[in-house]
């Protein structure tokens, strides 16, 4: 059964069984993203609980214009970004445009990220700034379109393309520094 069918059934019947199925599908993904961004297990648990309750209470507002997963992830990213802003935990999450004079590698192929050893991917994602990590997760883990990412971060498509390019370059630079003996 698709997500959208489960949402429809839940809204029609208010039967918790349908919500439980959606919980099973998405809670792990929401927790994983929250943990990646907040870097704290107990905060990620609280975030997952708040986000799932938000989804439950706002289910009727889901209008089928986007995929259900995109809707859920946009709630998740917005929650985490707001949380970090409130706590002023990580300035990189502000997504402000600024000129960086750091020496970045040339364009990075998607295959470099997608075919990477998972343990190394985890290490590098922990090291790059949260803003870059967020945008890479949206593109490669959630497979969101440029337009969808722009909608969540309230940026133009060209700004998002530039941010993805820079995030990939920073990812590769960090990788090269970390594993320089192999590069």
């Amino acid at each position: 059964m698709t997500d959208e069918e489960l949402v429809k059934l839940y809204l029609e019947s208010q039967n918790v069984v349908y919500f439980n199925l959606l919980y099973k599908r998405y809670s792990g993904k929401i927790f994983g993203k929250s943990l990646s961004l907040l870097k704290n297990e107990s905060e990620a648990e609280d975030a997952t609980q708040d986000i799932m309750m938000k989804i439950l209470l706002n289910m009727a507002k889901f209008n089928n214009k986007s995929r259900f997963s995109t809707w859920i992830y946009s709630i998740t990213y917005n929650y985490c970004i707001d949380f970090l802003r409130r706590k002023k935990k990580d300035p990189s999450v502000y997504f402000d445009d600024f000129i960086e004079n750091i020496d970045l590698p040339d364009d990075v192929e998607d295959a470099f990220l997608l075919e990477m050893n998972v343990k190394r991917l985890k290490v590098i994602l922990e090291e790059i700034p949260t803003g870059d990590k967020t945008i890479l997760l949206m593109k490669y883990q959630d497979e969101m379109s440029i337009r969808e990412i722009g909608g969540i971060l309230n940026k133009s498509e060209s700004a998002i393309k530039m941010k993805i390019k820079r995030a990939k370059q920073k990812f590769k630079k960090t990788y090269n520094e970390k594993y320089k003996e192999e590069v």
Partner: protein
Amino acid sequence: MGSEDKNSFKQLEKIQEEEYSENLDKVKNSIDGNMNSLSSITNIIDLYFSKVLSYFANMTGGTTSESEDDDL
């Protein structure tokens, strides 16, 4: 081999889901608690709201459909 198997980001997501299943059970219990509280509140409102409404209607001299039915 599916496309997910070739995507290291998806593999990482899957590993995290398995690694933190205990945390998710804990979160689910809290959500169930919240849902039970919500459902209790809804039941209370369902039960008493109409009675409170008709009480106030009667107090202000109006009639509710329930009291009109009683009159018949």
